[in-house]
């Protein structure tokens, strides 16, 4: 059984947020949902200013507070390390969300057909688009998200973003089980993101972690994250976020 982890090289990140967009398109996430988010930081005072960037996926913790608190086992830890959300099981209590120290959970506040960027139910637009899209919402809807995954055969890839259930980064389970990299990793223009199996000493992630010093976010919280950062340092009180994305639904 693989032990998946993500390694993020802060020395390479240009803060372009392409990973955020790759995630959004791959997973058709609703507006203002950022399963992957990129912080942009500024430190120090002119002219001794420093600018740096930090991507923030779900940490897929080994000791995940969200898994512990889930009252119905909708949020669960897979043997391969992925922290999954069964959207058929979730009752929408958002306990996982308040329990998570990293703020990676997003709740479907709206109905799916109202939850996307453009009102795809708009009659005029729909009329023209339907012949191509067969009424899919959004038109670039990814069918893989509906399917069940893992030996447990549970639907954990986000699906149609059902109203009233919680969601978060799935490490693109639908791609990983197909042997692909998560969308953000695959797309990173600077190859700052890496994904792989810690049990395989030959994997890129294992090599990087052997070769270079690294840290994990909020390790002191005992969550044992599966996301490692190379270079740089964790953000502190001195790190001012600039160009924050404040999107609300």
């Amino acid at each position, binding site marked *: 059984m693989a032990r998946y982890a993500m390694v993020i090289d802060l020395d390479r990140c240009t803060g372009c947020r392409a990973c955020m967009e790759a995630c959004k398109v791959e997973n058709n996430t609703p507006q*203002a*949902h*950022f399963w992957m*988010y990129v*912080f942009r*930081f500024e430190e120090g005072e002119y002219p001794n200013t420093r600018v740096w960037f930090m991507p*923030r996926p779900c940490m897929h913790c080994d000791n995940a*507070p969200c898994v*512990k*608190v*889930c*009252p*119905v*086992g909708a949020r669960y830890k897979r043997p391969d390390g992925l922290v999954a959300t069964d959207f058929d*099981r*979730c*009752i*929408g*209590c*958002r*306990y996982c*969300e*308040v*329990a*998570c*120290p*990293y*703020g*990676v*959970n*997003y*709740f*479907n*506040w*709206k*109905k799916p057909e109202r939850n996307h960027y453009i009102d795809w139910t708009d009659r005029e637009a729909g009329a023209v688009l339907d012949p191509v899209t067969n009424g899919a919402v959004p038109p670039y809807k990814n069918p893989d998200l509906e399917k069940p995954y893992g030996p447990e055969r549970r639907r954990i890839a986000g699906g149609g973003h059902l*109203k*009233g*259930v*919680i969601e978060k980064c799935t490490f693109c389970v639908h791609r990983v089980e197909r042997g692909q990299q998560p969308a953000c990793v695959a797309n990173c223009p600077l190859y700052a993101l890496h994904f792989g199996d810690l049990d395989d000493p030959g994997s890129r992630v294992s090599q990087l972690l052997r070769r270079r010093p690294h840290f994990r*976010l*909020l390790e002191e*919280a*005992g*969550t044992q994250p599966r996301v490692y950062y190379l270079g740089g340092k964790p*953000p502190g*009180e001195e*790190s*001012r*976020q600039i160009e*924050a*994305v*404040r*999107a*609300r*639904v």
Partner: protein
Amino acid sequence: MVTQVQPIPYGVGRFSAALVLVILLLLAVIAGGVYALYTQLTEGLVVTGLRDIGTMGGSAWGLYIAFDVYFVGVSFAGITTAALVRILNLHHLRAVSRMAELLTIISLILAAFSVLPDLGQPLRGIIYLFKYARPQSPFFGTFTMVIAGYLFASLVYFFLDGRRDAALCARRAGRLQWFYRLWASGYRGTAEERERHDRASFWLSLAILPVLVIAHSTLGFVFGLQVGRPGWFSALQAPAFVILAGVSGVGLLIVIAAIVRRVLGAHDRLTPEVFRWLGNMLMVLVAAYLYFMVVDWLTATYAAPSHEARISRAIYFGRYAGVYWTSVAALVAAFVLQFRQFMRQRYELSRIVLAGVLANVAAVGKRMLIVVPSQTHGALLPYPPGTYSPTWVEYGIILGLFGLGTLMYVVFSKIFPIIELPEEGVEG
């Protein structure tokens, strides 16, 4: 020959015009709540002021959870008083024990109802909680202990305690006779039955008290166990919850007792003695809670880690200062009121009631302050601080719940004596 039996006292079965008006009013309030709930069910929780923690800069839990905690808290007082009355033989408080028990049962039902609208999938919530509930989740304790243990135990206690009066009521012919008979379930008041009931209720009380503590503690754990939420993660949560529960519960009981005393003119049963006792109980609990708050404040200001500090800043001086200081003021006032009466040993009903009201105002405020700030200002990663202000939907649903509770209370008091029937006249 049949002795002429007087009608059941305490306004049972008598409906004045004013009462009908009150009931209609309550029904209107409930209807409002139902409409709000309908809007939410169709549109989703987007109609509330709740939003995601983190980039969305919101609060995932709000009014619903705060009032759920509040209602569970209120339920504390009822059954405790009843149990204490039984265990410590505080006979002078027997008069309020039924009111207390009823308060417990109704507020527990309201608590259950106030969680449902918070769920994104209420129907799943009802089914899946019974189907998949996990003990690892603090919800499990709240859910099983409170609903199953606590509510059911109270019902049992309530039922057994009411049999005697039911039997008495059953003597009168009337539309509800079948109901009284059913409740009395063959109670005749023989010495043997009384002795049986005594023993049963004694053990029941003993069994209920620990369940009670567990239930309220687990509710505290729901927050206290969250390492990811500065301001929540604390061993103090559980005990503090129990105490604040007492404060709000006893407070509300005082208010209800006073109302009943006024409406039913039951001055002979609800004596100043009763209120003095409740008042003192409230004073002690408030004092204990104030102590908790001081400890809390010291820890938060003396050597708080930066994240804790951010929250306390928001609470003491920032966005939430208004709510916080109002609650503090209310608590202090409640305490001072009671303490002065206690020292002088001269009690005034109005003052005690005022204290009860203040205590509940403070309780509601504190519940909000426990739930919200840690979400809006407790981010461990440098997200910008969030905001939360409830919408009409949330207020509507909560009001509706209060309406429902009051209605249940009123209706019950009209079909069953809300105060234990006096000893005399038992044998008619």
